[in-house]
């Protein structure tokens, strides 16, 4: 469905005087999602996860520079094609209720999303009604304003907004943020249902535990770089994980020892070498010289010279 190869995103800004400065936010990122699959993208905050979603929708700010190759349904994803596809083929499920207009009724906003995704004017009301019913939202909720929604309800409205059209690729940005475990489970369940109908779901989150409940595969992000692609089953504590960063992330979970393994990786502007090398006990001269490519190791992919 989606194939991202060697994606880099950098921002240029002018500092004091007229010196142009480039900040690299995502570097050499690879990502692949098949239909019917939930691919979780996990990483610390600031790793560039949300930027990835914005890049896939082509809604980055104008000072962003994107390079690398993107393929959607086996055809190159150009800027022009993206303009047509966003909303109709690729949809965003945003992370919080602030992504709804505070002054517009919920129903109006879902209906607008339906119109934009290509539903005709006559078909819109029944389509919206079905979307509401699918996510167990009462009819009168359509007349509410976003501030009247509870956290779980807001999540369902956002999911309804994104799925009211026929998008095949859904980008869920932090769907469990700020929800209690019951509501989070429900939100993840909805994503699983969508994947089971043949849609591809990109689940962007910092919460590995939540992601593992529904994801098929996990891509681990470290400082704007994909360091490992593993099957969800690999996260079982039996040493199947490949990259030292993934291991450290896994061990930092409360259930697995709660070991704060490394200081947060903040910057990715250094140009050469492995981004994680400063915190890695296996590092040697090779790690500082060039960024490792993704290698296939026992059923997954890892970006490490030594794994």
């Amino acid at each position, binding site marked *: 469905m989606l194939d991202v190869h060697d994606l880099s995103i950098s921002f240029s800004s002018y500092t004091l005087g007229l010196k142009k400065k480039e900040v690299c936010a995502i570097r050499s990122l690879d990502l692949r999602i098949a239909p019917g699959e939930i691919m979780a993208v996990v990483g610390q905050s600031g790793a560039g996860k949300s930027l990835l979603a914005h890049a896939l929708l082509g809604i980055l700010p104008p000072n962003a520079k994107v390079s690398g190759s993107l393929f959607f349904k086996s055809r190159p994803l150009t800027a022009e094609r993206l*303009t047509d596809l*966003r*909303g109709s083929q690729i949809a965003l499920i*945003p992370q919080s209720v*602030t992504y*709804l207009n505070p002054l*517009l009724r919920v129903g109006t906003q879902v209906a*607008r999303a339906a119109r934009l995704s290509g539903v005709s004017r006559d078909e819109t009301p029944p389509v919206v009604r079905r979307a509401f019913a699918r996510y167990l939202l009462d009819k009168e909720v359509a007349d509410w*304003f976003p501030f009247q929604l509870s956290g779980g309800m807001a999540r369902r409205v956002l999911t309804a907004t994104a799925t009211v059209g026929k998008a095949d690729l859904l980008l869920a940005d932090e769907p469990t943020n700020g929800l209690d475990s019951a509501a989070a489970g429900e939100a993840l369940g909805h994503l699983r249902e969508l994947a089971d109908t043949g849609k591809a779901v990109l689940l962007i989150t910092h919460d590995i535990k939540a992601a593992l409940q529904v994801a098929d595969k996990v891509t681990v992000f470290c400082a704007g770089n994909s360091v490992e692609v593993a099957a969800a089953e690999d996260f079982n504590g039996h040493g199947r994980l490949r990259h030292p960063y993934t291991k450290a992330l896994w061990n930092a979970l409360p259930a697995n020892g709660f070991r704060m393994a490394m200081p947060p990786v903040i910057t990715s502007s250094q140009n050469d070498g492995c981004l994680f090398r400063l915190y890695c006990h296996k590092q040697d001269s090779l790690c500082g010289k060039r960024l490792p490519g993704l290698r296939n190791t026992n059923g997954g992919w890892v970006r490490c010279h030594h794994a």
Partner: protein
Amino acid sequence: MFTIIKFLFLKTTRLALLIAAVAVLSFVLVSNSPIDPVDAYAGAAILNISPEQRDIIAQRWGVDKPPIERFLTWAGQLVQGDFGVSAIFNEPVLDVISKRFITSFWLMALAWSFSGALGFGLGLTAGAWEGSLIDRGIRIYAYTMASTPTFWVGIVLLMVFSVFLSWTPTCCAWPIGMSADQATIWQRLHHLLLPVITLSLIGIAKITLHTREKTIEAMHSDYAIFARAQGESTIGIVLRQAVRNVALPAVTLQFASLGELFGGAVLAEQVFAYPGLGRATVEAGIGGDVPLLLGIVLISTVFVFTGNSVADFIYQLVDPRMRKVAGSSS
């Protein structure tokens, strides 16, 4: 319903307190003014008035009494609705104010509508296409006008259009030699043209800058990002998403700007010798006409206060978040 009564009650109480405070303060200021009412009234004729005659006038006006006694007399009559008699116009203060107010009303109403509508449109355009050429043009205009004094704009317009081009009259609200009733609506509009343009040019600037800021904020908001992710175009985001969120603060600003509008009108009316309330204020000040000056101060307090209250009220009416707080929240 109950909320509206409570709202009105609170506002009325506040207005009463405000009027009392303004009355005391402006009375203190006026009684410490270096202008002697009797001297100002007599003008050059003061040379022909003997000190005895002067004392008689002062006595009749009560200027010789201590300030506190004067204030109490004035306030006592005020409570009964008597604003006193204007010294320079020799008419009851309320009559002068109402006549002048009607003349000023059209000037202010037109300038207010133009600056509100055009300012909002320009601000929205500039904000939606931030950084574009059109945004730069609008911004240069707004910054220039926001830092230009009203009277200067008035003088420039007067020189160009009235003096050099002779397209517009140089003074007054209707042709010289006519009374207000004799002038046709076209003649009156012709005389209104330059003062309205002056006030609007300045008024637009502030509304534009404010609207532009709010629009930029809205265009960078999460809901605008989400709309774009749904495939909405920039125009679509502006018209369907941003407008509502920008209009709300703009309405508030528009009504709250009545005070500045009044201040601007004083200057514009002075430059164009337009016989409105603003000019009456200046005349009352220079002529030492204490009853008229205080009357105008109080009336304009009510005017500005009403503007602010209307802004509050509209805000509560339009914003669903404010509406629901009072009513049943579901």
